[in-house]
């Protein structure tokens, strides 16, 4: 029996390993942004129309004004400039169909508003139009489609800048192309730090490493951890935190940053534990945490890797009165479902401002609501970001002339742009200097924007 059993189990353990290998793949990746919006009738303007509409007016003037830019970043095709009075196209590259239209449409409306205002303003040297391309394929954002859209914009000489994309993985596919073309690209919504300031970011801009063409008006995820720590320590008056993360890139990253900052602020990190994937029972972990008497549990991760159940099980071990905080990975409806009633009172950070609460955004919101009255155009979390991104490009074209290289150099040098999101510029990586983090709180079973502050 013994020998037979061992042979048998050796095949059994092989099967265990096989299962283990497949188990990871079977788990769906967590997608924090969940939204189901009605599909718009058509995905806005198509690119073909703009190519026809853009007058080749620049061709004559080009030779006169196309002095090579100081940076020399512009590659051949892109160096043509448009004469004053010509129509400048602002490319918009967002998910415009399927469920993600709820993200793309209100953001693109911000661009349309900026273009309308620029055309109405007397004294502007150029006319403007927005051309919108959809990067969603079968209702889901698609990096390959995004790259195709950028190539289309890149080939269109009237395009002086692109607003978009919405999703970080689409940006990953697009940044090398806009960098190569020296075409300014401003994202209203990407928050992944790897797009601008890490070694991975350097790989994305190999063509012109020193001439950054990709910028963003929202801040990055890596400020969520420290900003959460500041808020917990200074505003919520929490002094002793127990930290838990899901041992994944995002979760461990923000939890480590939280811990560093919280300790630096003067708080006490009582412990830092990591969950293993697939784990469902956190009562033992929470019992251990409870014995250290924390006044805050900080979770780095997303709802599906434990963020919801951890909060839920805090009530089972008598910790419901202890404050719970996490990053934007738990600021989603899924968390409310998983945590149930226990979710109330939880805090989450989001690396984007709440436009409605910014004093600078008041005029923008008024103008937006006057122009867009259809329910599907309702102002979104990134409408103001799209508006600002377009205005930065317009300002650059007006001041530097409709020449891609000059526009790029101008945008890279923006230091105190006054927009709907406040006054800010871009740092050496192309990231906004306004690191506005908003604080969300579960109140009455819903995530409610409670506060925001500029992280320093």
């Amino acid at each position: 029996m013994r020998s037979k059993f061992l042979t048998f189990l050796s095949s059994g353990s092989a099967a265990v390993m096989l299962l283990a290998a497949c188990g990871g793949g079977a788990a769906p990746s967590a997608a924090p942004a969940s939204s189901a919006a009605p599909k718009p009738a058509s995905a806005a303007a198509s690119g073909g129309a703009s190519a026809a509409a853009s007058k080749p007016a620049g061709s004559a003037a080009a030779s006169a004004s196309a002095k090579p830019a100081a940076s020399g970043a512009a590659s051949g095709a892109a160096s043509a400039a448009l004469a004053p009075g010509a129509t400048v196209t602002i490319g918009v590259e967002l998910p415009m169909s399927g469920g993600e239209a709820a993200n793309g449409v209100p953001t693109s409306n911000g661009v349309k508003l900026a273009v309308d205002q620029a055309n109405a303003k007397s004294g502007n040297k150029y006319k403007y139009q927005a051309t919108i391309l959809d990067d969603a394929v079968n209702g889901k954002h698609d990096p390959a489609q995004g790259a195709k859209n950028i190539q289309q914009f890149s080939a269109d000489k009237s395009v002086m800048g692109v607003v978009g994309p919405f999703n970080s993985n689409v940006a990953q596919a697009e940044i090398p192309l806009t960098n190569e073309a020296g075409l300014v690209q401003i994202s209203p919504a990407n928050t992944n730090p790897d797009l601008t300031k890490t070694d991975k970011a350097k790989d994305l801009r190999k063509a012109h490493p020193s001439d950054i063409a990709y910028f963003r008006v929202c801040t990055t995820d890596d400020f969520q951890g420290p900003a959460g720590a500041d808020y917990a320590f200074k505003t919520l008056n929490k002094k002793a935190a127990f930290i838990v993360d899901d041992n994944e890139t995002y979760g461990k990253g923000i939890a480590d940053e939280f811990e560093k900052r919280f300790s630096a602020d003067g708080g006490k990190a009582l412990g830092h534990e990591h969950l293993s994937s697939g784990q469902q029972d956190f009562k033992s972990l929470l019992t251990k945490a409870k014995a250290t008497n924390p006044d805050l549990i900080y979770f780095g991760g997303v709802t599906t890797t434990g963020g919801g159940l951890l909060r839920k099980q805090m009530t089972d071990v008598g910790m419901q009165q202890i404050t719970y905080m996490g990053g934007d990975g738990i600021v989603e409806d899924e968390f409310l479902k998983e945590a149930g009633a226990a979710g109330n009172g939880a805090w989450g950070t989001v690396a984007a401002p709440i436009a409605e609460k910014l004093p600078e955004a008041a005029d923008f919101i008024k103008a937006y609501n006057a122009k867009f009255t259809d329910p599907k155009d309702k102002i979104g979390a990134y409408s103001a970001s799209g508006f600002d991104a377009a205005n930065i490009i317009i300002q650059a074209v007006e001041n530097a002339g409709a020449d891609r290289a000059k526009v790029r150099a101008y945008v890279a040098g923006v230091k105190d742009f006054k927009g709907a999101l406040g006054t800010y510029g871009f740092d050496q990586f192309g990231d906004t200097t306004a690191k506005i983090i908003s604080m969300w709180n579960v109140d009455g079973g819903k995530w409610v924007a409670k506060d925001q502050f500029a992280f320093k």
Partner: protein
Amino acid sequence: MSALELLAQQIINGLSLGAIYALIALGYTMVYGTIELINFAHGDVFMVGSFVALLIVGSLGVAGTVAGPAVAIVMLAVLLGAMLATGLLGVVIERAAYRPLRRAPRLAPLITAIGVSFILQNIVQLRAGPSPVSFPDVMPNPIIDAGNVIISAKQLMIIFVSIVMMAGLQWFVLNTRLGRAMRATAQDRQAAALMGIDINLTIALTFFIGSALAGAGGFVFGIYYNSVWFINGYIAGLKAFTAAVLGGIGNIVGAMLGGVLIGLLESLSAQYVSERYVDAIVFGILILVLVFRPSGLLGQQLPESA
């Protein structure tokens, strides 16, 4: 919270977790004891049980906590429904996937079991979606607070359900004709057949009971965690399998003991070592048991069967 209170609390946490593992482990051990197959689809049968429980809760129109004595009726209905459904599922799996391979080389049914596991996961994923699904908080959960040590009503319920199931199973196997037929089939299939025992029926019965117990596990899981997910069967199944091997695969009391020990091991290593090493410790124990005591804690060295 003193060190002793902390230990007591962790033992309570471990017992309630271990009770679920024990329920699942019974299915592994019964099937192995009878046809020497490690039924890797068993963890997924448990998972299906949790979704069936969710379906029944939904069809009863229960959306929140049930107050008063009605809760006992609702829970009993859901429990029995989930057990019946998974029991039948187990029989169907055995008939369709394992019986045709009963004389095939050993690896064939093992791989088939893995295939069945993926089929079940994918069906549930298609039907219920790729995200965790929330399970209504059917049962009120008052907390019994003995000083600093807390026991919740749900933890007591889990332990109670498990004890009833295990005692019932033990009684059935030892005291009924069918139970005796199961034991006879486990000892020597051919001799049992010669004695007039319907082997196919007995094996189907074994699958029915083992899968129904996994269904009961799925039910308590849903009630306890209020969240069910199509991949839940995978880790829970592996842990329960470890429990069955630890206790001595093929041995019913051993599976119960193994389940409770694995639960305790998890909660104590989360407390005294680190949460992130819990799985490594549990599966490390599996390796040690296989190397030094392959027949498990309570397993006997059975004579080689033909």
